[in-house]
């Protein structure tokens, strides 16, 4: 039986813009199990990155948490992330929970050698033995297939994008974290490098046995790496479940749309389809279902009543937030001509 590692309960976050508020996360609840690998999937602006930084309470200054908690369970102690003082949070960050935000290419201080990034990180967490730190760094760099000596004495700009991503991964593992969160770990990289990074992640996960949360817009990446998938839309989790269940029998029309619009390179047809319309404006609170505007299954119920995330009947641990959820959603979608063809 899986034990819980992180519990997100009823989390709402808003951003205060110059003229209006943006409700980035709206009552999101999600359990993350120890040792699992979970993908947070959604289009840009769906709140997945906001959720990512919430795990370590590193939200931008213009944001506000309006409801909910995140609890992190470590050594059978429950830590309430939002109630932890900054000094404690600083200790927790990177030593227990590693969060690698988007933009690994610029993740390193351009005037510091890679060596000093390792040392700086270790020192900040009270580990002062330089030889030990560098030995661990060398091991980790070798582990991600890099020439450790050369990399350690390099400046960031002397490394390629793929190399920097690897260095960041090994820097992430320096303090043996329990949880690793990756936000779009492969975006700025070319396809070949992406492949290598994915393979590497699998290996590392096996060896270091951390809980992996990764944030992506790319369902195929989720299929490859995740045990479970949480699909997010307009600041809400709309469907959560085992990766096989999500792909085989999506209940939510949005999930089904995402799956069918993922290009299948191996299939006989190479056409790419997409969900018509665009994500809703997040500066207002929805009365009904946020997906209403774009949904092929919508009915009058959806206008005024917001669907709650509830377990489906057929399968344990598969949750969906849709008034018209059913195991036949994918069939419906495929039959209709709802999706617009790009090519």
């Amino acid at each position, binding site marked *: 039986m899986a034990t819980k590692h992180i519990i997100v309960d009823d989390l709402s976050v808003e951003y205060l813009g110059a003229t209006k508020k943006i409700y980035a996360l709206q009552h999101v609840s999600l359990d993350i199990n120890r040792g699992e690998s979970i993908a947070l999937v959604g289009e840009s602006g769906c709140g997945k990155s906001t959720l990512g930084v919430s795990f370590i309470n590193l939200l931008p200054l213009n944001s506000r948490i309006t409801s909910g908690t995140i609890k992190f369970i470590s050594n059978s102690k429950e830590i309430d992330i939002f109630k932890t003082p900054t000094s404690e949070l600083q200790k927790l*960050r990177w*030593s227990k929970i590693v969060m*690698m935000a988007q933009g690994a290419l610029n993740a*390193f201080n351009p*005037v510091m050698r890679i060596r000093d990034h390792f040392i700086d*990180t270790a020192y900040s967490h009270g580990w002062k033995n330089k030889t030990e730190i560098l030995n661990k760094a060398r091991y980790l760099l070798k582990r991600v297939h890099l020439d450790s000596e050369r990399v350690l004495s390099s400046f960031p700009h002397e490394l390629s994008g793929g190399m920097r991503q690897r260095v960041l991964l090994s820097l992430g593992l320096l303090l043996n974290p329990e949880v690793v969160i990756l936000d779009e770990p492969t975006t700025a990289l070319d396809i070949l490098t992406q492949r290598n990074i994915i393979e590497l992640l699998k290996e590392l996960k096996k060896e270091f046995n951390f809980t992996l949360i990764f944030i992506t817009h790319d369902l195929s990446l989720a299929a490859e790496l995740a045990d479970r998938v949480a699909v997010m839309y307009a600041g809400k989790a709309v469907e959560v479940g085992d990766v096989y269940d999500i792909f085989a029998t999506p209940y939510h029309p949005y999930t089904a749309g995402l799956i069918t619009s993922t290009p299948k390179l191996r299939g006989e047809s190479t056409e790419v389809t997409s969900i018509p319309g665009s994500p809703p404006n997040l500066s207002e609170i929805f009365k009904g279902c946020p997906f209403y505007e774009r949904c092929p299954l919508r009915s009058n119920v959806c206008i005024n009543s917001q669907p709650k995330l509830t377990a489906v009947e057929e399968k344990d641990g598969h949750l969906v937030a849709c008034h018209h959820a059913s195991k036949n959603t994918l069939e419906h979608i495929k039959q209709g001509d709802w999706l617009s063809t790009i090519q």
Partner: protein
Amino acid sequence: MLKKILSNYFFIRLVKALVTIFVVATFTFFLIRLMPGNPLDIFIATQLAQGVPLQEAQERAASLFHIDLSRPMMLQYLDYLKNLARGDFGVSIISTNTPVSKIILRFLPWTLFVVTVSLFISFIGGILLGVVMALYRNSWIDQILSFLASIISSIPNYVIAMLIVVYFGVKLKWFNIAEIRGSLSPGVKPEFSLYFLKDAFYHAMLPIIVYVLTTIGSWMLVMKSSTISTLGEDYVEVAKARGIKESRIMTSYVARNAILPLFVSLAISIGFVVGGSPLIESIFVYQGIGLKLSDAITTRDYPVMQAIFLIITASVVVANFLADLLLGVLDPRIRTSRN
């Protein structure tokens, strides 16, 4: 490999500095020698008018300007360069028999002292205030500082100097305007003592205040915008996620990167401050090279004028070179990319 690139960047900077000095030296030679109504001709003409025979007038001119007029122009030019390289700038017309190099040695250090101290204070002060403005941006403290910075940097420095003398000196009598003149009080000799240092700073105080006031504003504004953009960099965000302490992030990650663009303006600022010294030193009657330049110009002491101009330019070139070197040391990227 890396060493090679490194020396490459520094080597290119060095060549540029030397070429600049060479071009300026050449330019002044031909300006003095070839311009219609050039000082050499005028000098000879005045000597002739005073009844000195042509040959003697030419000899006097030759010894003053260190140019042998009987030789072809190209050779004269080479002689001039040779003399320059030996630090021989000829003799002053006004204070006869005083070698120009002696005048330079006596007055240049004071100007360099004042300029260096001022730039140091305004650079450091501008960085600190700029960071404060960036951290508390849009607060009242930022708005007041931004307002003051933009106002004070648009007022000409000599105007500030005059106002200081008239208001604080004559009107409020905070200092004695006659006593504070010069670079040292009568009887005080340069030596390693607190007494000497105190006196030197007392006399240098006013020019330093003016230079600091007129340059600090732009440092503040540049540092503010540079810090704001650095705060938004990914590596600062990642450093926070790495659990690095706030103070360490502010110094080694934010400030350390945000100062880099300031070194580009440093070169311009050095030129501007040194260039303004004839005005500021005249107003305060500070015995530096700038005052000597304006004296030489009013008295038409061409050898002195030419030499001081060259030496001022050379100092600025050297200062720029040093700023470039420092930037090269501080920013690893520049050593490989900017040449």
